[in-house]
C-alpha cells in the first residue's frame, strides 16, 4: 500500500519511545535525536510538493459514533507545522548534550502533540493532543529539579488542567447544542447558546497567556530546565494562536485583549530581575500582537487577511527569535549558575559570541529592519492602521518601544556589561548550544533580509511591502530614540532584588489560606464528627449485646439522674455512688431475656402491621 500521508507529529511521538532504548550509545542517540526533526521536515516538504497529500483531510478514525480527523492539511496548518518542526531541530540541537533520556522524551512528546493540535481536524483530536501537550511540557519544568520548579510546575499543571476541563466541557456543550465535531470557526455572539464556544475560547486564551489568565507563563517558564525552557517558549502559546485563528478569527474582544497584553508584558518586564522571567513577560507581550491580529482577522476583508497573515507570520518569526533569546540567557545560567540581574554583569569578555548571537534575537524581537521581527510585526501594526484603530496602533507601537528597551538594551546591558569588573567567572557554553543559537539567529536574519520565503507560505496571498521607506524610517527613528531615552535613564534600570506580584497571587495566596483553613478549622470539625460517630457506634454495640438489660440499665440511670436534684444533700452522695455503679454495668454481663417463639412472631406481625399502616397512609397522602 502506498502511504498517502503520514502524520508528522507521530514521527516525534513514536520516535520518542526509542530514545530510552539507545541508552549508553551517546553518539548514536544524538544522531537519532537530530534525525527525527529532519524526517519530519522532509515529510512536510513532500507534502508541499504534492508527493504526500498537500491539501485536504485524511486519517479518519471513528470514535463514539463521531468521525475524527487526524489530518487536516491546508495553508494555515502548514505554516505552523513548518515553524514547529524547524524550531524543534534547533532546540534539540541546543539540548543534545543532556544525558537524561526522559527529558528528551518529554520534549519530543511535547513537539509531537503540538503538531497533533495543528493537524487536528476535529474537536476530540484537538482535546487529546492538547492534554498531552500540557503534561509533557510539565516535565520540562520539573527537570530543573529545584523546589521552586516543583512548585511552579504544580501551579502550571493546575492552570492547564483547568483549561483542559474548560475545553472538554466546551466541546461537549457545543455538540449538545447541535454543533459540529469539525474544528472550524465557531459562531460567536451573545447568549447562552454560545456557552460551548465561550468555554473553548476560555481554554484557548488560557494557553495564549492572555491576562488575567496568563500568569502561569511568567511563573513557570523561568523555573524550567535550561534546555526545557527553550522548548516551552515556542509551542504552547503559538499553538494557542493557531487554534484562535482557526476558531475565533475576527472576534473583536481579542483586539483589545491583545493590545492590553502587549503593553502588560512590557510593564512587568521593567520590574523584573530574573533574566528569563523578563523574557517570559516579553512572550506575553509578543503573543499580544498575534492575539490582536486574530481579533482583526475578519474573513474576506483585505485588512482581515493582512491581520491573519500578520499573526501567522509573527508567530513564525517569534518562535525563532524567542528561541535565540532564551538560548542566550540559558547559556548564562548554564555557565554561571546565576539568573538574576543583580548577580550578573561584566561577563561580556568571557562570552562575546553568545552576546552577539543573543543580540540578533534582540534586534529581531525589537523589529529592526533586516531582522525578522520587522517583516512580521509591522504587518499587524499596519492592519490596525487599515482598520483605523488609532488607540490600538499607539499601544502596539508603544509596546515595540518597551520591547527594544528591555530585551535589546536593559537585559543584555545588565547581564553582560553594567559593571566594570565581571561578577564571576564565565565561558562560552558547549558547542552544540552555540551552534543551535547560530542556526536560529541565521534564520532570523534570513527571513528579515528575504521575507519572500515566509510570505509565500502564509495563509492568504501577501500584498505587503515591509521595506517601504516610510516603515523603515519610522521604525529606525523609534528604536534610535528609545536608545537615547534608555541611555539617559539607565541608572534607573538596574535590577532590584524583588519579585513582582502578578495575577498568580490570586491562587498562590488565597490557595494557602484555603489549605490553612482545611488543616485547621475543617480538620477540627471533621475530627469532632468522627469522634461522635464512633461513640454512637460504640453505644449501639453496647445496646445490641443485650437490649433488655441495656434498657433496664439506662432506665435506672435516668431515674437516678432525675431523682438526684430533689434529694437531700446526704442522699446525694448515695445517688452519685449508685450512678457510678450503674455506669459500670455491662448489658452483656446481665442475664439474658429469651423470648419464646410466640412472642417473637407477635413482634414480627406487629412490625409488618406497622409497615402496612405506614404504606396505607403514604398511599392516602399522595392521592
Amino acid at each position: 500500500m502506498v502511504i498517502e500521508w503520514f502524520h508528522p507529529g507521530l514521527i516525534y511521538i513514536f520516535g520518542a519511545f526509542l530514545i530510552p532504548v539507545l541508552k549508553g550509545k551517546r553518539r548514536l542517540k544524538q544522531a537519532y535525536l537530530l534525525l527525527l526533526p529532519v524526517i519530519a521536515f522532509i515529510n512536510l516538504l513532500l507534502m508541499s510538493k504534492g508527493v504526500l497529500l498537500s491539501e485536504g483531510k485524511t486519517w479518519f478514525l471513528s470514535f463514539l459514533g463521531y468521525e475524527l480527523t487526524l489530518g487536516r492539511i491546508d495553508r494555515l496548518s502548514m505554516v505552523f507545522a513548518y515553524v514547529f518542526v524547524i524550531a524543534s531541530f534547533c532546540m534539540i540541537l541546543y539540548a543534545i548534550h543532556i544525558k537524561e533520556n526522559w527529558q528528551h522524551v518529554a520534549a519530543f512528546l511535547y513537539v509531537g502533540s503540538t503538531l497533533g493540535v495543528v493537524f487536528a481536524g476535529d474537536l476530540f483530536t484537538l482535546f487529546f493532543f492538547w492534554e498531552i501537550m500540557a503534561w509533557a511540557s510539565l516535565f520540562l519544568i520539573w527537570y530543573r529539579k529545584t523546589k521552586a520548579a516543583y512548585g511552579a510546575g504544580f501551579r502550571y499543571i493546575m492552570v492547564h488542567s483547568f483549561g483542559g476541563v474548560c475545553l472538554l466541557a466546551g466541546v461537549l456543550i457545543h455538540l449538545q447544542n447541535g454543533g459540529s465535531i469539525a474544528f472550524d470557526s465557531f459562531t460567536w455572539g451573545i447568549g447562552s447558546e454560545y456557552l460551548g464556544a465561550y468555554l473553548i475560547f476560555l481554554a484557548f486564551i488560557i494557553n495564549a497567556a492572555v491576562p488575567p489568565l496568563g500568569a502561569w507563563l511568567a511563573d513557570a517558564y523561568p523555573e524550567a530546565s535550561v534546555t526545557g525552557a527553550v522548548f516551552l517558549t515556542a509551542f504552547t502559546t503559538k499553538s494557542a494562536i493557531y487554534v484562535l485563528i482557526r476558531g475565533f478569527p475576527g472576534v473583536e474582544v481579542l483586539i483589545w485583549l491583545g493590545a492590553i497584553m502587549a503593553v502588560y508584558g512590557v510593564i512587568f518586564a521593567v520590574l523584573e530581575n530574573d533574566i528569563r522571567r523578563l523574557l517570559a513577560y516579553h512572550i506575553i507581550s509578543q503573543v499580544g500582537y498575534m492575539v490582536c491580529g486574530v481579533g482583526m482577522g475578519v474573513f474576506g476583508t483585505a485588512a482581515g487577511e493582512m491581520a491573519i497573515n500578520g499573526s501567522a507570520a509573527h508567530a513564525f518569526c517569534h518562535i525563532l527569535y524567542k528561541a535565540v533569546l532564551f538560548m542566550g540567557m540559558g547559556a548564562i545560567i548554564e555557565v554561571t549558575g546565576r539568573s538574576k540581574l543583580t548577580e550578573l554583569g561584566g561577563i561580556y569578555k568571557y562570552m562575546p559570541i553568545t552576546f552577539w548571537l543573543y543580540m540578533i534575537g534582540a534586534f529581531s524581537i525589537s523589529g529592526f529592519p533586516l531582522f525578522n521581527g520587522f517583516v512580521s510585526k509591522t504587518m499587524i501594526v499596519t492592519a490596525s492602521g487599515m482598520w483605523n484603530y488609532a488607540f490600538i496602533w499607539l499601544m502596539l507601537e508603544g509596546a515595540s518601544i518597551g520591547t527594544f528597551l528591555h530585551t535589546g538594551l536593559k537585559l543584555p546591558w545588565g547581564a553582560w556589561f553594567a559593571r566594570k569588573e565581571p561578577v564571576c567567572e564565565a565561558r562560552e557554553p558547549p558547542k552544540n548550544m552555540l551552534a543551535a543559537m547560530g542556526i536560529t539567529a541565521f534564520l532570523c536574519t534570513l527571513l528579515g533580509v528575504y521575507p519572500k520565503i515566509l510570505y509565500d507560505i502564509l495563509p492568504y496571498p501577501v500584498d505587503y511591502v515591509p521595506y517601504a521607506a516610510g516603515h523603515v524610517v519610522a521604525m529606525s527613528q523609534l528604536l534610535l530614540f528609545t536608545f537615547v531615552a534608555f541611555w539617559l535613564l539607565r541608572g534607573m534600570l538596574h535590577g532590584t532584588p524583588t519579585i513582582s506580584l502578578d495575577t498568580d497571587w490570586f491562587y498562590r495566596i488565597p490557595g494557602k489560606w484555603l489549605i490553612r483553613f482545611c488543616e485547621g478549622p475543617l480538620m477540627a470539625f471533621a475530627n469532632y464528627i468522627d469522634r461522635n460517630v464512633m461513640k454512637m457506634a460504640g453505644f449501639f454495640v453496647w445496646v445490641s449485646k443485650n437490649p433488655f438489660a441495656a434498657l433496664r440499665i439506662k432506665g435506672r440511670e435516668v431515674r437516678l439522674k432525675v431523682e438526684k436534684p430533689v434529694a437531700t444533700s446526704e442522699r446525694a452522695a448515695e445517688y452519685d455512688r449508685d450512678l457510678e455503679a450503674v455506669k459500670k454495668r455491662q448489658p452483656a454481663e446481665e442475664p439474658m431475656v429469651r423470648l419464646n417463639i410466640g412472642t417473637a412472631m407477635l413482634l414480627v406481625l406487629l412490625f409488618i402491621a406497622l409497615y402496612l399502616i405506614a404504606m396505607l397512609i403514604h398511599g392516602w397522602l399522595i392521592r
Partner: protein
Amino acid sequence: MLYVSLFVGVLAGILAQLFLHLHPHFWWEKIPVFSAIYGFIGCIVIIIASKALGHYWLQKEEDYYEKH
C-alpha cells in the same frame, strides 16, 4: 557615533516626509519625526510609570510567597 546616527535618523525622517509619497493611516504620522518623539517620550513614560507601579504596589521582597 551615537550623535551621528541620531542626526542621520532625524534627517532621513524629515527627508522622507518631504520627498517620498508615504501612506499614513493616522494624522499624527504626518508630523515630521513623529516616531522619534514617540520613541523618546514613550520610553521615558514606560520606565517611570512601570517603576512607580512597581514601587507603590507590585514589587515585593523575594521571599514574599514563602512568608505569606
